[in-house]
């Protein structure tokens, strides 16, 4: 093959004991090229690359030919491995929060890599560090060198990670889900930076991602993986425009589509909030005046009609979850809240608990929101048993089955525990738990963000069906406008606790009035 070939895997197989994690994978990266490995969680995309570079725990069996820059990796000694990793191959991991050591300053951590691989010390090292930080376009470089990781934002930390990865002029840069933990608006900047660095230094870039939008824009070639096998590989445009494999087609098609059913003409208002705001008081420092309270949500008003979905969008920290929690009285808030003609904000204790069955919430994390120690039937029926103690066992069992059928789960799975279900199924259980109380309003707090695209799409379809069947109103919170467009009638855009704009979904997406909304739309690749 050509001299241009940088990294090559042939028939790579990775085994954990008896489990086959990667089955005979072929992959190659040329200089100056971006290759993307895509697949859903558990498809073996990270494992294959980490395994090939010897970064998996001992006891993992790795077979197949691995070549880097013309040399066989299978014959490397441990010293050569160390020179390779961090030297000629740079890594960027998913979690910028945990991949920096919190006990060392940014400068020190960067200096360490330089000292180990290039023997740079003192002034020379300082010069190189500031140069690197400037290359990843970080502001106020001198201040930043003395900063601790916790003082940086997620995007800044990821940039520091990138600076570390390119510190030793690697030939190959491996980015394992580099933007998944970042805000949508920051994602684009980080990827643009990676593209730029690749072009400038002629590196090979191996991008591991589940996000097809991102891959489509940034990769030259794509390898699609499923269950540890390569399903399809080829140039990005070919794979996306004429996918050969049904699974690839399904992945590409799984961008949420469709629109919600229109709301009835004379639907009554179900929920109305009048200048609701949430503030958190800050602790008073000793002998100094108390600092002003932190305003998480500035006073805002909203209305939600029967059968209508209001999408609340914004990046993390914009106060959208706080707003939702405040509206259903899980957080103290000021302002007036009316639900179904009754004033909610003045209720407390038992009166409030009785009202709660009318409005339910589904949380983002399908792993955290179900008690791991209870079987599914108990989880689902818990609220029902409390609110309707008059129901006997057979009635409760009937309602459980009804709720499970509503969310397309087999009715006999009630005795299983949550850990036996996949993320998407758990989210269905969480929805069933809410639906069994026959609520009129469902608050969905990023219900699809932790799920794979294909599962996400199914869940959105399910939610629309449930809405049509029961005439529910949704308050739908998300940072992903592609999902919101498929769900919401109206949209409210939040930034730092303030309403940036609001309006009918279509109209707002077509003609956004603020740059912030435009950035969100751009990030969601709604074209």
């Amino acid at each position, binding site marked *: 093959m050509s001299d241009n070939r940088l990294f090559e895997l042939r028939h790579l197989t990775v085994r954990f004991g008896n489990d086959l994690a990667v089955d005979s994978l072929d992959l190659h990266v040329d200089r100056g090229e971006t290759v993307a490995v895509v697949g859903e969680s558990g498809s073996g995309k990270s494992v294959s690359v980490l395994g090939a570079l010897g970064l998996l725990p001992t006891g993992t069996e790795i077979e197949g030919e691995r070549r880097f820059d013309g040399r066989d990796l299978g014959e490397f000694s441990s010293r050569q491995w160390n020179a390779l990793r961090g030297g000629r191959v740079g890594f960027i991991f998913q979690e910028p929060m945990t991949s920096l050591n919190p006990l060392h300053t940014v400068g020190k951590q960067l200096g360490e890599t330089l000292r180990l691989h290039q023997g740079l010390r003192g002034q020379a090292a300082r010069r190189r560090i500031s140069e690197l930080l400037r290359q990843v376009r970080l502001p106020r470089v001198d201040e930043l060198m003395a900063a601790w990781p916790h003082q940086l934002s997620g995007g800044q930390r990821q940039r520091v990670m990138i600076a570390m990865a390119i510190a030793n002029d690697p030939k190959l840069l491996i980015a394992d889900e580099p933007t998944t933990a970042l805000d949508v608006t920051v994602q684009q900047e980080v990827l643009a930076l990676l593209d730029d660095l690749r072009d400038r230094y002629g590196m090979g870039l191996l991008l591991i991602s589940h996000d097809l939008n991102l891959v489509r824009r940034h990769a030259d070639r794509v390898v699609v993986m499923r269950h540890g096998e390569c399903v399809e590989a080829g140039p990005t445009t070919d794979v996306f425009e004429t996918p050969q*494999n049904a699974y690839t087609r399904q992945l590409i098609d799984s961008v949420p589509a469709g629109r919600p059913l229109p709301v009835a003409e004379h639907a009554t208002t179900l929920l109305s909030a009048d200048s609701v705001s949430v503030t958190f008081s800050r602790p008073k420092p000793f002998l100094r005046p108390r600092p002003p309270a932190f305003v998480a949500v500035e006073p805002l008003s909203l209305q939600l009609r029967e059968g209508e979905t209001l999408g609340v969008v914004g990046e993390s920290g914009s106060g959208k979850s706080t707003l939702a929690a405040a509206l259903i009285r899980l957080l103290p808030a000021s302002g007036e809240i009316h639900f179904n003609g009754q004033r909610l904000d003045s209720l407390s204790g038992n009166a409030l608990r009785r009202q709660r069955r009318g409005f339910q919430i589904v949380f983002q994390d399908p792993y955290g929101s179900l008690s791991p120690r209870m079987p599914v039937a108990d989880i689902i029926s818990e609220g029902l048993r409390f609110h309707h103690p008059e129901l006997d066992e057979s009635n409760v069992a009937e309602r459980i089955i009804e709720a499970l059928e509503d969310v397309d789960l087999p009715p006999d799975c009630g005795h299983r525990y949550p850990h036996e279900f996949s993320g998407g199924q758990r989210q269905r259980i969480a929805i069933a738990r809410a639906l069994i109380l026959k609520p009129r309003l469902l608050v969905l707090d990023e219900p699809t963000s932790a799920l794979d695209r294909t599962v996400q799409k199914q869940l959105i379809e399910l939610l629309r069906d449930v809405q049509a069947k029961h005439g529910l109103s949704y308050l739908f919170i998300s940072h992903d406008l592609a999902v919101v467009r498929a769900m919401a009638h109206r949209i409210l855009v939040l930034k730092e606790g303030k309403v940036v704009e609001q309006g009918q979904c279509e109209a707002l997406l077509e003609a956004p009035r603020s740059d912030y909304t435009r950035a969100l739309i751009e990030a969601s690749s709604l074209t």
Partner: protein
Amino acid sequence: MTSSHRWRLSPITQRRLQVFRGNRRALWSLGIFGLLFIFSLGAELIANDKPIVMQYDGHWYAPLLMDYPETEFGGFLPTTADYRDPFVYDQITDNGWMLWPPVPFSYQTLDRDVRGPVPSPPGSRHWLGTDDQGRDVFARVLYGFRLSVAFALALTIGSIFLGVVIGGVQGYFGGKIDLIGQRLIEIWSGLPMLFLLIILASLVEPNIWWLLGIMLLFSWLGLVDIVRAEFLRARNLEYVRAARALGLPSRLIMRRHVLPNAMVATLTFIPFLFTGAITTLTALDFLGFGLPPGSPSLGELVAQGKNNLQAPWLGITAFVTLSLMLSLLVFIGEGLRDAFDPRHILTASQVKRPVAPEPRIPPDSPRQENLP
């Protein structure tokens, strides 16, 4: 609740059991301690100054269960028969037979026939010798062990109840309740327990219930911090928030969703409570402020050993008993702590067989099944 599958062990419990079973020292300690405790529960059958069953004049008697007057066996006094009295003994053996426990002395039996001065050294009559009042040391150790463990058990259960309730309320509600509660507990824990016990011992006749009650006033303090921290953490878990959104009342949420989390920390703390209770009881008895005189107590044995250095079997017996009991408990505690430590790595010997993956229910949608 409805589920008929309650009995199924969750995988996390299975893993804990596996880790505990893999720790051979803890497993053996638990076995030995359990045996000893069961053994000591039958103390009346092993060491007693009454026969277990007897026959006299063709009638059956069970002196262990019932008191018979001496006149029944040809004696003169209408008091409870003393079967060790030579006259009664001869009367019964002449007209029937008696089945004695292996050690024919109870913890408070004064052996008047002992040869030589008391404390008398170990021998065939007294396996571990006698103390300075001529009482059999083996019998006293046996009853003393039982009393210590029972006392510790009662104290531990009581402390867990108080500690979990108080810590749980503070942690779950937080805010002012937590703040005020913590300050009150700080004041309360400033009270010197030992002095309070000694003062109270001079006011009332201390019996085991008094001691239990007074020690219970203080022993829950250590548990509160742990339980409170667990509740503080757990109240913000998403499934707890989901339960609040369901409209469940606080007591239900605490019992069903938060408590199981806090129980892990509590269970790990139990062995420490247990050993602490035994040590405190022994210390009080040693000082003479504990159980009423005559009770079978390990602390009193330690005191006797100190006062009778010429009789080393007293001190040695007390030392061996106490160190054995406390070491076993510490080993069990270690095993428990490891079993509940999520970061504890299973060693190869602990993983006997790879656990087969749980059968999964069909994938998310039938659509995926059509795919290659």
